[in-house]
C-alpha cells in the first residue's frame, strides 16, 4: 500500500511537469500549427531565470585577508553577499526564497523571449512544411543551449528550495499508517499544487475571457475569425508568449527537484512530445490527461516488482503505451479531426 501511494505521488509530480510543458507545446501547435522543438529550451531558460536571480542575489563583496593565504599563495578572499549587507535578515530571506521569487522575473522575461522568438523566427515558417519547422526550432534549441552553457558552464547548478519546505512530510500519518512509512518531499507537493493551479489558470483564461474565446475560435477556424476583422495573428503571438511563460514557470519551480543544466530542456522535450501525441495534437485537455497518465505509468513501471518480471520496462513503458493508444485511437486520447491530416 505504501509503495502504491508513493508511486502515485511520484507519478503525479512527474506528470505535472510533463503536463505543463506539453500544455504550452500543444497550445502553440493548436493555434499556430507549428511543431516547436525549441519548447524544451524554454523550460530550460525558465530554470536559468532562477539561476540568474540566485546569482544576482548572491553577488558578493570580496575583500582580501592578507593574513590568510590560499593553497596557491594568493590572499584568502572573504565574501559577503551585498544584499545581506544592505537588507540584513530580509536579504537572507530573499536568498532563501530565490526560487519562488524567480517567478516574478521569469514571467516578463519568458513573455519577451516567446514573442521575440515567434515574431523574429517562427512566423516565417508558418506556411512551410512541418519538417522545416522541426529543423529550424530544433536548431534554435541547440543555439539557446550553447548560449546558456557558455554563460553558466556544463555542470548542474543547485537551487535549494526555501528552508521551510526543504524537508519531507510524513503523509503516511495522515493516511493512518505507521510513522515514516510514506514520506514525501514538501517541495514536490508544492510543485504538484503549482502545476494544478497553472493548468487551472490557463484553462480559465481560455474558457472565461474574451481573449480566450477568440483564441479558441481561431484554433477551430482561423480563416473565419480573420474574416470577422479580428487580428488573430497578434493574438496567436501572445499565445506563443503565454506558452513560453508556462514552460518557463514550470522550469523555475522544477529547479529544486532537478539541478538545472543547459541540457535539461532536451531531456523533457521528447517525453513532452509523446505526451502531446498521446493526448491528441492540439488538445489542451488531452495534453494534461496524458501528462499525468504517462507520469504515473512511468513511476509504476520503475517498481522493483514490475522490473523483476519485465526488466527495462521503465525505460520503454511510455513509448509502448503511446504505440498502443495510437493504434486504438490514431488521433490520440482527445485529438480533433483534421489536425495534421491532409
Amino acid at each position, binding site marked *: 500500500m505504501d509503495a502504491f501511494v508513493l*508511486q502515485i505521488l511520484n507519478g503525479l509530480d512527474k506528470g505535472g511537469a510533463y503536463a505543463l510543458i506539453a500544455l504550452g507545446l500543444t497550445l502553440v501547435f493548436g493555434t499556430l500549427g507549428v511543431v516547436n522543438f525549441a519548447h524544451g529550451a524554454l523550460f530550460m531558460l525558465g530554470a536559468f531565470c532562477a539561476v540568474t536571480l540566485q546569482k544576482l542575489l548572491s553577488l558578493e563583496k570580496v575583500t582580501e585577508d592578507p593574513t590568510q593565504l590560499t593553497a596557491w599563495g594568493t590572499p584568502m578572499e572573504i565574501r559577503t553577499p551585498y544584499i545581506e549587507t544592505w537588507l540584513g535578515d530580509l536579504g537572507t530571506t530573499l536568498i532563501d526564497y530565490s526560487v519562488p521569487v524567480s517567478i516574478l522575473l521569469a514571467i516578463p522575461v519568458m513573455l519577451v523571449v516567446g514573442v521575440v522568438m515567434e515574431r523574429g523566427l517562427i512566423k516565417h515558417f508558418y506556411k512551410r512544411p512541418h519538417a522545416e519547422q522541426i529543423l529550424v526550432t530544433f536548431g534554435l534549441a541547440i543555439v539557446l543551449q550553447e548560449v546558456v552553457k557558455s554563460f553558466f*558552464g556544463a555542470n*548542474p*547548478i543547485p537551487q535549494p528550495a526555501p528552508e521551510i519546505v526543504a524537508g519531507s512530510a510524513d503523509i503516511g500519518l495522515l493516511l493512518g499508517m505507521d510513522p515514516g512509512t510514506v514520506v514525501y518531499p514538501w517541495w514536490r507537493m508544492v510543485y504538484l499544487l503549482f502545476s494544478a493551479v497553472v493548468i487551472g489558470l490557463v484553462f480559465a483564461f481560455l474558457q472565461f475571457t474574451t481573449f480566450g474565446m477568440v483564441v479558441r475560435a481561431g484554433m477551430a477556424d482561423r480563416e473565419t475569425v480573420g474574416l470577422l476583422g479580428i487580428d488573430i495573428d497578434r493574438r496567436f503571438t501572445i499565445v506563443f508568449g503565454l506558452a513560453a511563460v508556462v514552460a518557463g514557470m514550470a522550469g523555475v519551480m522544477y529547479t529544486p527537484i532537478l*539541478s538545472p543544466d543547459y541540457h535539461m530542456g532536451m531531456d523533457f522535450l521528447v517525453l513532452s512530445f509523446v505526451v502531446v501525441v498521446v493526448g491528441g495534437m492540439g488538445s489542451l485537455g488531452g495534453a494534461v490527461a496524458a501528462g499525468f497518465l504517462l507520469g504515473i505509468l512511468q513511476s509504476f513501471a520503475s517498481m522493483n516488482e514490475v522490473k523483476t518480471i519485465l526488466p527495462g520496462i521503465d525505460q520503454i513503458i511510455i513509448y509502448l503505451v503511446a504505440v498502443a493508444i495510437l493504434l486504438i485511437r490514431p488521433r490520440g486520447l482527445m485529438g480533433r479531426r483534421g489536425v495534421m491530416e491532409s
Partner: protein
Amino acid sequence: MTRRTITRRDLLKTSAVLGAGFAAPMIFTRGAMAYTNEPKGATVTFGFNVPQTGAYADEGADELRAYQLAVKHINGEGDGGMLATFSSKALKGNGVNGKKVAYVTGDTQTKSDAARASAKRMIEKDGAVMITGGSSSGVAIAVQGLCQEAGVIFMAGLTHSNDTTGKDKRANGFRHFFNTEMSGAALAPVLKNAFGTDRVAYHLTADYTWGWSQEGSIKKYTEQLGWKTAAAVRTPLGAGDFSQYITPVLNSGADVLVLNHYGKDMVNSLTQAVQFGLRDKQVNGKDFAIVVPLYSRLMAQGAGENVKGIFGSTNWHWSLQDEGSKAFVKSFGKEYGFPPSQAAHTCYCQAILYADACQRAGTFMPSEVGKALEGFKFDGLGNGPTEYRAADHQCFKDVLVVKGKEKPTSKFDVLEVVEVTPRSQVEYPAEMLGGELGPFNNGTA
C-alpha cells in the same frame, strides 16, 4: 614531318619507369618511419582528447588546462610544477628527446564514436604520437582499442571502470587513475568504522560499464564486511528525476543507499535522496547512511549542501599536503585562479609520465616507451610511492577516502580527506580482472 607513334613496348617501358619513380619515395619513407608518427622535426605532437562539449565539458576543460600546464613545464616554461618533486629527473625542462612538445586537441563529446573519430584525426592528420584524456570509461576503452590498432600509446584520463585495465586492457594503454576495485577496498574499512558490520545496502546503479563495475566492487567488499544487499537497481543513464527509484528504498528495510552514479546523475540522485529525507531517516534502529563511491570535487560542488557527511573515494584531492600536491596546486592555482580537480591531476601526471618514459627510453617508439613505463616506480606526483604495474598497466598507489565537508570555507572546499588507504590494501592480482595485454603495436614498421 614525321609522326611518332607509341608502340605497346614504349607504353610498357614508360609505365615501368614512372611506376618505379612514384614508388621509390614511398618505399624510402616507409622504411624511414620506424613507428607511427615518428617525429622528424623539432617538435613532437601529443593529442589531448577531452570532452569539450556535452555533460562533462567542465571536467574536460580542467583536463585541458592541466595538459597545457604540463606541456609548459616539460618545455621549460612556468614554475616547473611537479617536475621539481617528481622522483625521476630524466626531464630537464627542455622538451623530450631534444624536441619541444606541441599538442593538438580533440573533442570526445563523452561519446565513444566521437572520441574515436577525434583520436583518429589526431593520429592520421595531425601526427600525434600519443593520445591522452577522457572522462568516461566507455570512451577510454574505445579510444584505447583504436590506439592499439594505430600503434600509438594511450595514456587514459579519468576512467574508473575495472575493465580499462581489466578485461579490455591493451599493451599500448596505460592508466594512472584508480578503479572501482580499489574504491571498494579503500572504502570498506572506513564504512565498517563509521556504520558497523550489520547493515543492509540498497544500490542504485548507472546502467553502463562503469556502473556495473562499481556496483560489483562495492557489493563484494561490503558483503565481506557482513553487510547484506537488499537490492541493486539499474537506472538509465541521465534519468534526471530518480524519485521513482528512490521511493522503493524508503521501506525496503535497507539502512544504507549506495549511489553508483557519476556526474550529473550523482548530483541529481543524491540531491533527491536527501530531499526524500533519507539522510535524516532511522531504519533498523540505525541512522540511515548514503555512500557515493566515486566522488569528484567538480560534481560535489553541483550537489551543494547535500554532500555534507557523505563518504566516497577519490583519486586525489587538492588539499593534500605532500610536496608534489602542493607544487601542483600552487602552479595550477597561479595559472588559473582555482585549485585543480582530480581529473586535472591525473591528466597532468599522465602527460609527465609519458614524457619521462620517452626521455628515459630515448625514443617515442611505443614498444620502448611502454617498456619504460612497465614496472616504473616513482614518487612526488601527489599520490605517494606509485608503481605502473607491468602485468596490466595499472598504477598502484594510495587511495583517498573522502567525506562531504560539514563546514566548507570556500566553494572549492567541499570534501575532506578522512583516510589515506595505503597501496597494500587496495592491491589485487593482475589476473583477477581478466583480459590480455597482448603485444605492443608500433604501427608503421
